């Protein structure tokens, strides 16, 4: 192999199409005779439906069908349980999945009640106003603790409770560990909701072709294969007669996972039923109410320390808001539970949560998927402890990191992949020191003091995290060398901007020694590749990337074998170089890969027994465990103590996602994640009133950070390669947004050392921070110490 592509950043293969407007997005799908759907949605958070009168809508010209739950007949079924709960002893899990259309009860504002299909979206929208739904309002359930009260209204009467799950996981014996504690800290932390706010909203288009007997569905899903399998089952069609295409998608971030959203289930049904193509494109209003959200949790956490600042144990009780339905099982709270432990040596851990149904939009993973909450709780506890113990925040972390010789490291609690939480590899302390070096270990405190003398409040936050990435079950890839010499790679993932067309091409190009732009990747079309799960949990590069590698290696083997046969020399005398096979030491005897592909697919003669035609191979990859990425984020903020506005002056990320396939793509993921995290820390919050009504369902009132609010991240990479996949890869998709809130909180406190300010909630906003500053008394703590140097162990690395 003479070419090295893994670890470089070639021009992205997909950018020409994206930048010239040639990329297909679902809303670009225009078909002859296409109809358009719109949905009557509940205005109520919780109400009984006493009746629906759709007659006026049906009478409107241009309206083709008006569908209620009753009209769906047997097709009306609650959605599938997408992720079953892990087999934890004593687990309670109450399932209630979303329904295609509300039948007798609505459970959140925005829940679809009636589908209208018309000749145009305009007509369909007009007809929505013709539909009369007679509601009997019920008391809504919004508060997580009140939801579990004896007399609380019950959202799912068949369950008799608003408890969605109760899970206890233990590692070691916390109570015993606590008995020798020098310091015990106990706090309550709040994390509230935000929107994923993908640039492209959801969209589904479907066409039934009666001659091909094939249903084609274009869907903005992150997981086209599970959607195909599920819809085929629901519609009574062969999987092979259903084709799901997830073309270019303008951002996924979790909510576009295989949700079987009502619209996703109804549009294909309608296309089949009406015999005409149907499309629905979500508008931003609908997105605020009907696309899944994340992040409301309340934690009551306790941590015990020895006198020298070593963690003895942690106990955490928390409430997790699952919203109106819980189709995605317990992935989020399990992630919170597991990720709380972070890069630290925690000998004892008791973690217990209750997931709670509320009359708010359903909760499923959004970038970070519960990890933020755990990291926020842990990092805040460490900050509070550092203050109590008179330690610098970085020093308390140094004293508790797992050492690089402690891997693999297992905690006896189950992770989201149902296996004990397993850290495959890591090296944490040097990342902290690298971050402090970028911040300016020897200069920062002096700068801070200088700014302070000028009346400016500058603060630094430095936090750590780990991210379990790259979990199974598996992905696959098929690599084919075509007679043109170009290479085609098919995988089953969906793609939402991660650069799959380039990263996977780099992996294959390196193995086959061809140019990256001669490797054509297709993703997200079940007709091209029909086995796999999807793009989530920062797993695409690790799992599908490894499958691409394995398939390419198999093709390479075929190339050598076929080359040996065609060139008439033993295989060990054949080399693959620059898109051709040739005889080692006799380069005149060579053949291009395209021509060789022709020889592998002969028109006469016979394929050698025991071989397959073509230079093609399919491979699958499923790791035993995920790979544990990690990092340190540092943030320098300036706080306006009067207005409580915070400006982020610098943002530093030292990230370790193992071997980098494409550093520019990794940098993009981190930068985008940080933007998401900054929004989550200080701008974005979905505000619900006590009636379960969302108060800020537009970008006028829901603040997304802009380019002006997000600095260019100063980034450094470390590569602690993963041992459980061939390229040593770890995921990076969510890393940027996981510790941001914790870094923000520490930085704001550090900027205002004269105040007894303790931030225990995220998101903040200028308004909320103003209140916290107003209510904070004077501090009685020593001024910040120097940032200090690494311990001998870390310095030795």
């Amino acid at each position, binding site marked *: 192999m003479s070419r090295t592509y893994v670890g470089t950043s070639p021009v992205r293969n997909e950018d020409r199409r994206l930048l010239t407007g040639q990329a297909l997005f679902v809303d670009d799908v225009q078909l002859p005779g296409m109809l358009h759907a719109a949905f009557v949605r509940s*205005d*109520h*958070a919780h109400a009984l439906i006493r009746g629906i009168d759709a007659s006026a809508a049906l009478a409107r010209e241009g309206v083709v069908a008006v569908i209620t739950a009753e009209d769906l007949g047997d097709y009306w079924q609650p959605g599938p349980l997408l992720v079953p709960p892990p087999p934890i002893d004593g687990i309670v899990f109450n399932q209630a999945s979303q329904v295609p259309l509300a039948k007798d009860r609505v459970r959140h*504002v925005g829940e679809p009640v009636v589908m209208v299909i018309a000749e145009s979206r305009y007509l369909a929208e007009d007809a*929505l*106003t013709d539909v009369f739904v007679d509601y009997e*309002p019920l008391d809504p359930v919004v508060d997580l603790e009140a939801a579990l009260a004896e007399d609380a209204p019950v959202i799912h009467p068949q369950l008799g409770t608003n408890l969605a799950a109760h899970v206890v996981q233990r590692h070691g014996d916390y109570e015993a560990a606590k008995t020798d504690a020098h310091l015990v800290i106990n706090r309550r932390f709040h994390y509230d909701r935000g929107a994923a706010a993908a640039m492209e909203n959801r969209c589904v288009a479907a066409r039934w072709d009666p001659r091909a007997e094939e249903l084609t569905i274009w869907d903005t899903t992150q997981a086209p294969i599970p959607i195909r399998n599920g819809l085929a089952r629901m519609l009574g069609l062969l999987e092979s007669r259903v084709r799901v295409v997830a073309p270019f998608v303008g951002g996924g971030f979790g909510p576009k996972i295989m949700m079987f959203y009502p619209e996703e289930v109804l549009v294909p049904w309608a296309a089949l039923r009406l015999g005409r193509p149907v499309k629905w494109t979500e508008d931003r*209003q609908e997105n*605020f*109410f009907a696309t899944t959200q994340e992040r409301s949790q309340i934690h009551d956490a306790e941590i015990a320390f020895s006198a020298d600042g070593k963690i003895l144990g942690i106990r955490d009780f928390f409430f997790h808001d699952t919203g109106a339905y819980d189709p995605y099982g317990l992935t989020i709270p399990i992630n919170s539970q597991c990720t709380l432990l972070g890069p630290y040596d925690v000998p004892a851990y008791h973690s217990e949560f209750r997931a709670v149904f509320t009359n708010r939009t359903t909760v499923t993973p959004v970038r970070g998927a519960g990890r933020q909450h755990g990291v926020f709780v842990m990092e805040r506890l460490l900050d509070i402890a550092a203050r109590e113990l008179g330690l610098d925040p970085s020093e308390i972390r140094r004293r508790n990191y797992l050492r690089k010789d402690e891997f693999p490291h297992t905690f006896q609690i189950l992770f989201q992949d149902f296996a004990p939480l397993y850290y495959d590899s890591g090296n944490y302390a040097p990342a902290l020191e690298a971050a402090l070096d970028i911040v300016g270990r020897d200069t920062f405190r002096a700068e801070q003091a200088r700014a302070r003398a000028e009346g400016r409040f500058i603060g630094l936050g430095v936090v750590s995290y780990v991210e379990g990435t790259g979990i199974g079950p598996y992905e696959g890839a098929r690599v084919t060398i075509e007679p043109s010499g170009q290479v085609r790679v098919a995988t089953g993932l969906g793609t939402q901007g991660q650069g799959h067309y380039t990263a996977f091409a780099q992996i294959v190009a390196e193995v086959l020694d061809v140019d990256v732009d001669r490797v054509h990747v297709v993703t997200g079309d079940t007709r091209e590749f029909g086995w796999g799960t999807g793009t989530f949990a920062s797993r695409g590069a690790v799992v599908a990337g490894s499958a691409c590698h394995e398939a390419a290696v198999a093709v390479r083997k075929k190339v050598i074998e076929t080359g040996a046969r065609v060139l008439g020399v033993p295989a060990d005398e054949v080399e693959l170089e620059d898109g051709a096979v040739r005889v080692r030491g006799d380069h005149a005897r060579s053949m291009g890969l395209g021509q060789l592909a022709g020889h592998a697919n002969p028109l006469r003669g016979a394929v050698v027994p025991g071989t397959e035609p073509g230079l093609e191979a399919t491979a699958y990859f499923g790791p035993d465990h995920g790979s544990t990425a990690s990092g340190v984020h540092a943030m320098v903020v300036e706080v306006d103590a009067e207005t409580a506005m915070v400006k982020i002056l610098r943002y530093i990320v030292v990230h370790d996602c193992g071997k980098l396939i494409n550093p520019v793509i990794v940098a993009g993921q981190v930068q985008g994640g940080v933007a998401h995290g900054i929004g989550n820390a200080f701008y974005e919050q979905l505000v619900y*009133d006590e*009636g379960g*009504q*969302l*108060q*800020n*369902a*537009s970008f*006028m*009132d829901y603040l997304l950070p802009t380019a002006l609010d997000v600095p260019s991240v100063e980034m450094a990479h470390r590569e602690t390669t993963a041992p459980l996949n061939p390229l040593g890869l770890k995921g990076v998709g969510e890393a940027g947004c996981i510790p941001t809130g914790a870094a923000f909180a520490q930085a704001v406190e550090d900027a205002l050392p004269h105040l007894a300010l303790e931030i225990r909630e995220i998101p903040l906003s200028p308004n909320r921070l103003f209140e916290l500053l107003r209510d904070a008394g004077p501090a009685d703590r020593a001024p910040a110490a120097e940032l200090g140097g690494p311990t001998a162990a870390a310095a030795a690395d």
Partner: protein
Amino acid sequence: MIVDGEHTFPGPRQTVWDLLQDPEVLAKAMPGARKLTLTGDGTYAGVIRIGVGPVTAAEWTLNVALRDRVPPESYTMQVDSKGALGFTRGNATVNLDEVEGGTRMRYHADLSVGGKVAGVGQRLLDQVAKMLTKQGLDALNKELESRLRDGGGPGDQAR
């Protein structure tokens, strides 16, 4: 959403009371009212057309029931309004006191607002509620003045 405040009408309490019970007057005074009819003892039904900030004006059906009537002192109002853009429901209490220069009305409404109008119009809701209340009270004032000018209603005797 809480809408509360007070307003002094330049007229006698009974006249003000009668005014506040008269669907024709209310239909005129209510901003955006398309129609309002008495459907039973103290119950009214109607259609109004209101927009809130970025939420385009749309029609809302309105049902109002007056309860706990203590003429001419006080009553409560049950309000139930809905339309394509959402709903408004809740209760209001109205107290009328005789004060120097006329009748003071104190009102307090506790309304829940839902749907699109709550999600998108939130930051304007309070302002719009205040504006609509003011428009309504101004219109009632005008109506009262014209009644008093035209020889007054039955309330005169009560004076």
